[in-house]
């Protein structure tokens, strides 16, 4: 079957098997390997991408279901070479070690801040509760998302602070 969708703002069109899962479509058909593929069972959350602005586990969504819709992956977070504040937060607060869970955490974190710009720690922990990290114990991920909430200007805020100090 033929599918067309917007991925990170660009229209893509491909012929696929109906059984193609969105995560494999993104990685194998589009070559966007920032989205990771983990448990296959919608438990680990590393495959989370945004579908029309809502985070979904792309191992449990058919690419066919995204036909005509808008997908955003971790590659779509930066704009014009500037990292999204959520990405900068993971740098500032060491929100990753091995990095396997990170693409999913970034998408979920971004969506959380889009609808709730000042989440409490509990709200952050709740938001990422469907995603597994085996390195950080989650503490630095929570701080990374808090950093992004506190610095909506992102990397620009870091430069500002550097200049001032």
């Amino acid at each position, binding site marked *: 079957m033929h599918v067309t969708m917007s991925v990170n703002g660009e229209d893509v069109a491909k012929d696929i098997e109906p059984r193609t899962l969105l995560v494999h479509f993104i990685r194998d058909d589009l070559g966007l390997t920032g989205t990771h593929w983990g448990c296959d069972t*919608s438990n680990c*959350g590393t495959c989370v991408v945004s579908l029309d602005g809502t985070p979904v586990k792309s191992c449990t969504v058919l690419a066919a279901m995204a036909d005509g819709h808008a997908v955003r992956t971790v590659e779509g977070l930066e704009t014009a070479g500037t990292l999204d504040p959520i990405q900068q937060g993971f740098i500032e607060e060491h929100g990753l070690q091995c990095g396997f869970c990170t693409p999913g955490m970034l998408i979920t974190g971004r969506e959380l801040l889009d609808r709730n710009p000042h989440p409490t720690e509990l709200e952050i922990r709740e938001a990422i*509760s469907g*995603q597994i990290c085996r390195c950080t114990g989650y503490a630095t991920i929570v701080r990374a998302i808090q950093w992004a909430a506190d610095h909506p200007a992102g990397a620009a805020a870091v430069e500002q602070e550097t200049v001032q100090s």
Partner: protein
Amino acid sequence: MQIPAPFEYARATSLDDAIALLTRYGDDALVVAGGHSLLPMMKLRLARPDWLIDINELHELDYVRRHGDELRIGALARHRTLLESAEIAALFPIMTEAERVVADPIVRNRGTIGGSLCQADPAEDLSTVCAVLGAQAVIRSATGERVIGMDEFHQGPYETAVEFNEILVEVRIPIRPRSSSSYEKVERRVGDWAVAAAGGSVTLAADGTIEDAAIGVTAVGLSGRVTDAEAVLIGHRPTDALITEAGRMTSAAVDPMTDQRGSVEYKRHLAGELTQRVLKRAIARARRQEA
């Protein structure tokens, strides 16, 4: 890599279109909404439909609205919508409390009430919620619509009254005065299936006695309601002793299995304890409503 067996995909453009597709392809077709139960089963080849009918574009089935003394929920309403509904939280706290522990937040973005009920997994929370609330299921086919209670809807594990050429379109929940409800689940970690869960609903009479009560349990080998324990409550003033007795009877009525989530003894204990907790909360809430 887990990949479903090959199938043909059809995206329904309207409810009539979905029913026409189901009628045409018969037993070889399955409806997919959120897909978070069906796609895993297809990956494991426990389900192998030749045709998958996608109803995600049928936005007319995605609603929560009050209609007289009923709350009507469209089959395509997502778990997240139900969790965030202030109307549901006010009328049926049992559903809000259950939605908080259905899978995880990302899964709740996709999963639907219709999908949960039609999957009819014995460990599924909303089946218990709908049974306790006395909900009715509206099922549509090419020839018309029928409305049935949850006891008739659920025919057994993974089995419902929905025929191959029919589709669940709506869930109707009666709104009753001086009533409230609660749900509590014990799970090993976020997103896991329940070790055990219980839901309870009560209606208080003007004199403070229990006019009506409903108890349901999840994942402990008893589908539908615990009518014996309900009968103990009805007509009496709610006391700790009475609630303890209802919990004891629920504990005796369930028929759980020992598995990696717990022993029979532990699950029996949970069924009784959780029943007492939800009844106490439901009664306290119903009293506040009266005030």
